[in-house]
């Protein structure tokens, strides 16, 4: 698979599953940080497989990968209770509704973006907004905010990561609304 196709598939099919994937992982992990760490490994595994060929259906594949990783962790680190792992099938492998329209309603998407941006720390938010909405350069943002450029980068770096957490934490709405 060409990398661009894998990326497009990953963004289109896998990332929208993040909210349910995180619920799944958190149910098996001690803390949120560990779940986020596992998520990263799940994604890497999914991408490695997708490079060979794109799975027909993303959801069962992502959750199977997650389950296998959890079992690995149990074996190697003994950090997760075996009971939890045995429950995973029913949690994760509920059938997906394939082919459903994933077009987000513009209003919903904007509300989501707005909410996510509102939750950012003030400096991160300001830097990100100046960059994305106002289209200012790093130097211009630095001047405007009265900080140096490396601090601007730092704020945006943080902002992007927090934004991703917030955006993917919510289940995307599917289909069209009246």
């Amino acid at each position, binding site marked *: 698979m060409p990398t661009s196709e894998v990326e497009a598939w*990953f963004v289109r099919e896998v990332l929208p599953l993040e909210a349910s994937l995180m619920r799944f992982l958190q149910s098996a992990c001690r803390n949120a940080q560990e779940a986020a760490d596992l998520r990263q490994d799940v994604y*890497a595994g999914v991408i490695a497989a997708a490079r060979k060929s794109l799975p027909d259906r993303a959801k069962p594949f992502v959750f199977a990968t997650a389950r296998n990783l959890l079992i690995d962790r149990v074996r190697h*680190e003994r950090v997760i209770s075996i009971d939890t792992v045995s429950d995973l099938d029913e949690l994760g492998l509920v059938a997906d509704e394939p082919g459903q329209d994933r077009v987000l309603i*513009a209003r919903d998407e904007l509300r989501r973006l707005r909410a996510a941006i509102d939750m950012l720390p003030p400096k991160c938010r300001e830097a990100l907004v100046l960059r994305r909405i*106002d289209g200012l350069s*790093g130097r211009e943002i630095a001047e405007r905010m009265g900080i140096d450029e490396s601090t601007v*980068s730092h704020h*945006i770096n943080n902002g*992007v990561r927090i934004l991703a957490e917030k955006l993917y934490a919510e289940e995307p709405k599917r289909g069209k609304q009246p």
Partner: protein
Amino acid sequence: MSDVTANEAIETRAADWLVRRQFEGWNDAEQAKLDAWLAESDNHAAAYWRLKAAFDRTDRLAALRRPMMDRASPPTASRKPWMILSAAVAALVLLAVGGGIAGYHLLTPDGRTFATPVGGHMTVKLADGSVIELNTDTVLHTDFTPDRRAVQLVRGEAYFQIEHNAARPFTVTVGGHRIVDLGTKFFVRASPKQLDVALVEGRARLESTNASAQTRPTVLMPGDFAVATATSIGVSRKAVHELADDLAWRSGMLVFHNARLADAAGEFNRYGDVKLVISESASRLTINGAFPTNGAEDFAGVAHEIFGLHIDRRGKDIVLSR
């Protein structure tokens, strides 16, 4: 199995790439470094793609960005960016609430004239299974016989989805040009000086009806955008999403990417009685966004809010100036 700090470090690094790509000094060498880093590990790709997809989504908020020329003098109030953000949200919400002008279906006998008024939108289902959608202010004749299907676009713009039948060719004539369907979806826009044809699917041939014309028949492939004048046919390529934007009128929308205000106003003016007039001083401001085709008033309001333009009503004209 990587440990927690390793994955966190990768994410921070991925965000760092994303930020650096945004700013000055990004060049091919930097891009090559990023590509190499992404190729190094699927963990890198996963972190970067995930953050990039989230970051890209904020593009929607940039729908109404301040124009380049204004950047030298940033707004003084620190709250200005938020005001801009709110306005961007307002403009895009229109996309959701503005349903556009309802199209209506007509089942018709062949061989007649179809017309839409300014602001109109009509879908015609022909007996052969082909579908023609007429945009605003459009007139079109059909003349069908058992061995040919001839359509003449007198003026305006239409989108064609043709049931191909080699034994009964489908042709669209516009001014001095003819489009011969070879199994196709395409749209045609006639304006006084030129003819635009964009091919969405299939193939079509564009040729001059004038036997002595200098131009040769041109076969159009998907993504081809042809501009024909009396003496020339030029073909360029458009990306799928650009064609989709060109066809947004089918769902009652106008989509602009870095469009000059004057050009955007010209588009609105095709659809409504209200005429937007952009003064010379404001014509070079650029705008991004999606609006209902009947949203000229909203557009003026947004331009007022974003660029601080003055709105001056003169009869049915709305004059925007700095």
